[in-house]
């Protein structure tokens, strides 16, 4: 088994990470914003306008 990455694989990894990090870095959060680690989408149902 080879753990070495080919040049193509390295490029793919770098492009993926660049895109993700570009996107994440643009986000701004309020001081109380929290990760949705308790993933319960139905809690939003009661909040419909």
């Amino acid at each position, binding site marked *: 088994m080879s753990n070495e990455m080919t040049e193509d694989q390295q490029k793919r990894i770098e492009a*993926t990470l660049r895109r993700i990090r570009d996107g994440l870095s643009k986000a701004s959060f309020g001081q109380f914003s*929290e990760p949705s680690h308790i993933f319960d989408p139905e809690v939003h*149902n009661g909040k*419909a306008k």
Partner: protein
Amino acid sequence: MEKRNESLTDMVAALAEGRTTPVELAERSLERARQMVDLNAFVTIDEKIVMAQAEAAGRRRSRMQESSPIDGIPIAIKDNYLTRDYPTTACSDAAPLEPSGVDATVVANLRAAGAVIFGKTNMHEWAYGATNTTSNIGPTKNPHNKAHITGGSSGGSAAAVASGIVPAALGSDTGGSVRIPSSACGIYGFKPSYGRASRHGVLPLSWSLDAPGPMATDLEDIIHLLPYFLGTDPKDSSTSHAEEFGPLPKPGSLRLINLSGPGLERCSEVNFVINEALGRSKARVSQASLNNVDQSFAAWEAILHCEASAYHQNRLFKGSDGFSPVTRAHLEAGNRLTAVELLEAQKIRGQLMTQLLDDLPPWDALVLPTLPIPAPALGEEWQKFSNRKATTQDSMTWFCWLGNLAGLPCLTIPVGKSSQDMPIGMMLMGRPGEDEKLLALAKEIDQNLNRGG
């Protein structure tokens, strides 16, 4: 392809009225599979296993002891669902090759209902891609034009249904893998709300994004099959509060929001077909755009890669030769993201859910094209549409990931054809947990669009 294939609902009626038998249906499906072998839709079909199930169903029916209305109907299974009598490969050389002796919960439910577990379908390796071109048995071909891809990752299931081999099949959906190939092949596909359908026994891609779902010839087929998907399963903690599939409510208002704007571009042909379909839908349609689509997409991608890498850690540690080079690169990217980045992605996920579920004007369903373009030709690496240039992979997930990141129930329905005669699908997304309401609304719209209602 213009004549509609026989649906599961048609078969339910034909069996109930004695116009056909499970053995006839199985023989017809096997014959069709032999005729359509060049689609490369199946990894495994064992004629003896299929016929033994059909004969058993026939005996039950002849004694008037059928297990359910679908007793004796052949259903194909994506090759990431464990099945007790077929190997499960995820179309990867890195997966186990022996039969597991275990059925995924959805497969077990269908088997208990008498469905004939017909065979295992081709898929994008480990469901880790949306083109169905990366598979250890080769790409699946689109029944509408064999020079075009099916999309994926449940591409074999879509091809098997669209070509009339089986009336319905199982898929799994992490960023659109049920809806993408369903749309590209002109059939119906449904992703349940996160937490309503058991994922037990479906090889994971990304735990918090994955959902199993049915793919079928007709919307009624989806409704027939959802009782076998939805409800609490002690083997899947995400379903601890899941309600069983209930009766569809009477369709009330049809308030649709047609989403568009930056990040949600599509080609003009798809845009025209969707707008024309909305015009015929008799729904009240308003327009809205979303903020920060690129940030939300980055969050989906971060969560996807981190969860997939975590799931595959042991395989990567032991040796990664079995993965295709592209899949290995995805997994390595997930390894290099930090815990802080993952938590930031989860914060963005919360923001997206607030935006969709709380901040938009009141809606009964959100509308997008399922795909921004019709199914591309095999071998095309890049796509251009509107002012965007994107890889074929990203073009396939262009809209669908939104439903996974927010945990919404989502449905694709066929609404038209491109100038090259390739299918175009429209996606409807409902509020989380309200799968029945989405289907009731979709039934009304489908009636207006596809049945001259």
